[in-house]
């Protein structure tokens, strides 16, 4: 056998082994844009069947089309998976919710979203939902699903966010949440809140990005007065979760980010 043929066989075997390993893990590996891409160790209980999992919505980035290679490394991957895994540790420790240690990636296609009644979407200021995805999201929310948006800032990103959201709910208003809304009291009383900064705060102390100076706590309600879409605009809870183990990140912001996230989950599981 020629060395070239042997090399080819070894390469083929390696490919097959990787594919088999990936299949066995059943957890596709995605790479996050921009930040900490250090290898993440899969927790030993990653396969545990639980009531709740941090469901991260995958969407096509603005101007990049609905799929292809960009779906593997789009804006939806920001802070992923470290933010997700840090945060669920908090959920596990602070509540009685039976929570999986790893996240679930959810596409707005097929029946998969309906098995995950709580969805998190990061950087929706860069999303561009197709008509089918918008319709699916509308259906998902009206059946009882809950969407939490995070980490988008300023006027431009709001505009991009609303371009897709208007196709999800053409006739529903986005309203500012009152401090007395149950979502801020379902577990923690969060009437007093402040802007949770992203990594931009490192070295600068700044808490806002672009022109998003004021944090906005907004929502879209259903016909019964229940929040379907909880919109966290001009803040970055995902960074707070991700960097909550970083001594440089403000502890009070990380703490607030955990509390908001937990309240939103418990609200979604009770309303």
């Amino acid at each position, binding site marked *: 056998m020629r060395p070239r043929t042997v090399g080819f066989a070894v390469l083929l075997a390696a490919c097959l082994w990787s594919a088999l390993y990936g299949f066995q893990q059943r957890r596709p590996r995605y790479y996050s844009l921009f930040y900490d891409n250090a290898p993440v160790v899969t927790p030993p209980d990653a396969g545990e069947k639980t009531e709740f999992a941090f469901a991260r919505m995958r969407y096509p980035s603005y101007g990049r089309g609905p799929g292809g290679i960009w779906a593997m490394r789009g804006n939806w991957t920001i802070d992923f998976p470290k933010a997700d895994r840090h945060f669920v540790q908090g959920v596990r420790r602070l509540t*009685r919710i039976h929570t999986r240690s790893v996240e679930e990636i959810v596409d707005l296609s097929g029946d998969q979203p309906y098995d995950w009644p709580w969805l998190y979407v990061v950087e929706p200021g860069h999303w561009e939902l197709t008509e089918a995805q918008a319709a699916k999201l509308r259906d998902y929310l009206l059946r009882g699903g809950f969407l939490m948006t995070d980490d988008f800032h300023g006027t431009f990103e709001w505009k991009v966010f609303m371009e897709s959201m208007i196709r999800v709910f053409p006739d529903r208003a986005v309203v500012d949440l009152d401090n007395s809304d149950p979502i801020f009291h379902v577990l923690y009383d969060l009437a007093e809140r402040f802007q949770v900064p992203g990594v931009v705060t490192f070295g600068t102390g700044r808490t806002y990005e672009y022109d998003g100076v004021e944090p906005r706590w907004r929502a879209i309600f259903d016909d019964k007065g229940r929040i379907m879409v909880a919109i966290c605009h001009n803040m970055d809870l995902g960074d707070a979760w991700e960097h909550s183990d970083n001594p440089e990140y403000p502890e009070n912001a990380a703490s607030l980010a955990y509390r908001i996230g937990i309240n939103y989950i418990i609200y*979604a599981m009770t309303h």
Partner: protein
Amino acid sequence: MFELLFKYPAAVFSKGDLVLLGSWPAWLLGALAAAAAAALAIPVWRSLHTRRTPLDRARAGVIWGLQTLFVALLLLVLWQPAVSVATLRPQQNVIAVLVDDSRSMAIRDQGSSRRDRAVEVLNGGLLDQLKKKFQVRLYRAGGELERIEKPDALNAGVPVTRLGEGLKRIASEATGLPIGAVVLLSDGGENAGGLDLPTINEIRRHRIPVHTVGFGREKPARDLEILDAQLPARSLADSRLSAQVSFRGYGYGGRKARLMLKEGEKTLASREVALKPDGAVQTESLLFNAGGAGAKAYHIALDPLDGEENVQNNALTRMVNIESNRLRILYIEGEPRWEYKFIRRAVEEDRNLRLISMLRTTQNKIYRQGIDDPKELEQGFPAKVEELFAYQGLIVGGVEAGYFTGAQLELIRQFADRRGGGVLFLGGRAGLAEGGYAQTPLAEMLPVVLPGRKNTFRRDPANVELTAAGRDSLLCRIEDDPERNLGRWKKLPYLMNYQDPGTPKPGAVVLADALPTSGGRLPLLITQNYGRGRTAVFATGGSWRWQMQQPLEDMSHEVFWQQLLRWLVSGTYGHVISSTPKSVLSDEITVQLRTEVRDRTYLPMADARVEARVLGPEGLAETVELRPDPVNEGVYLADWSALKAGSYVVEVAAKRGEEEMGRDLLSFRREDGVAEHFHTNQNRELLEKLSQQTGGRYYQPGQVSKLPEEISYSEGGISTRETRDLWNMPVLFLAALMIRSSEWLLRRRWGIV
């Protein structure tokens, strides 16, 4: 013929006692007969061995038997057999002739009307024959018993048949009047309470035989008749109700008829039914929405078919009290989970249910929803009777038994047992066996025997399948039509998780099974009655997928949970609960009001003052005091007469001193001229039973010529006991002759003369 052979009518033998008038004792007759049999056996025995051609044993036995029988007959005649029978003294007794004059006697089902045929029988000789021997009193029986002079006064116009009342009156008259017998001419259509045992016993006490003459066809040629319609006496507004309608038909077997249920002019339910063969009783259900609150009169009817003889019996009315209470269900959940959210959402639209929930969000925090007052459940799960018993239902979600104190566990048990509440247990990682309930007092109230192991909860998919009981149960009806309902259940998305609930108890009903996709079958929805209340297990926390995985317009999840929770609480009553045995009095007057009173802790209350305020037709308003039932503690009764036809509303209030314990509303309706159209066939069974139990006899109109003679043999009225010889009955001589002739003929045939 019978009289020719036996000298007397059959009634003499059926009513009389056999006696032997001879002066020798009866035992001697037996002894002599035995001696004769032995003596006759000797020559027969010898003939078996001494003859040249030995006699066959069987033939010898026959000859011996005939000879013995002949001698025994002669001996019997010597002992002078006779019959002792009571007979009415001529002209000293009264025969009460009761003629049913109700409207059903006007039915022309055999050429002429039943009334005409009865008059024909009476005028055709029956009255004259009776008058020769007795004083005859003729009565019109129907509503009140009324004496008439001539049969022509009968007009078949009384809207009700109260044969029992008539017979009671005759029995009371018998204390001052020598009534020797009653002759009842009727079609047996008794529609006002029936012939009860006390009435029959009263007649028997006076030893008055009731002879009945039946009129009318025993079955019609072409008719449909609704026999009954079962509906709950009360229900929550907007509930799905089921009317179980039983009916039968003649002459239409295999045809289809439309069964419908109406409220006023509005049709609430309608369906086609295939009719069974003649006379077979069939029961069909009609599902309908009860609608808003109020005392509702539902009309259940079968559309008349062509050529039907009696269309008046195709419809009847039932009353149901539809209540608008908002019943309160306490739901305790041990951990945030999707099932909790979606149950809350499913019943949110139900105006009659209010879900008050307490959810353990963290180890030390409880999130309350649906509370009326900020202080409600502030201290956690209720620890006092008054607090827990303020709810009508309880859902125990995924919360471990150890969360409750021992006293709270006992309180939950008593919530069903004493309070009459409904308790639903859900599956979950801390529910049922996983929660350690097998070792608590709650194990007794569960409809299952919990498994004695852990790891019974699985977060794996499982499909759902209705059992036979579930297919019939209203609780599992997502669709009205049974077949479509079954189809909907088959299409339900799989459950997100399931739990092995253990083994259903003997009194429990399994309505649905879980079929894990990995294989096997487990009970999923199990219900049972417990004490005054009811309990259920729904061994999953994953039915929320029925909501999320189905189109938005699909209401399977909402309907299922609303019906399950309505079932849980609809039988949970307050401190005062009233009822009547029937919601519609068909040509009846008396109604029994029954009220059960419980104190603040739901123990039977024996010292209450219970008053019913009755509002009826034409401005009737009357207050009735209910008396304690000596048998059942806490139960109060009153018999009340609804003198006018129409709807009645009764408000019952119970007080202890000045403290009011509670109130309850009930309604009923009296309808006249309806019952006569039902059960129009001759009720021969009732007439025969009445005759049989009182010592009389049932006659068909063509047989009444024998009645005047047979009626004489009675112990009622003024009677004498007569002894009549039997030794000279022609049948005895004929028998003797036949025995001897038979022996001679047999001997000739066998060549042994």
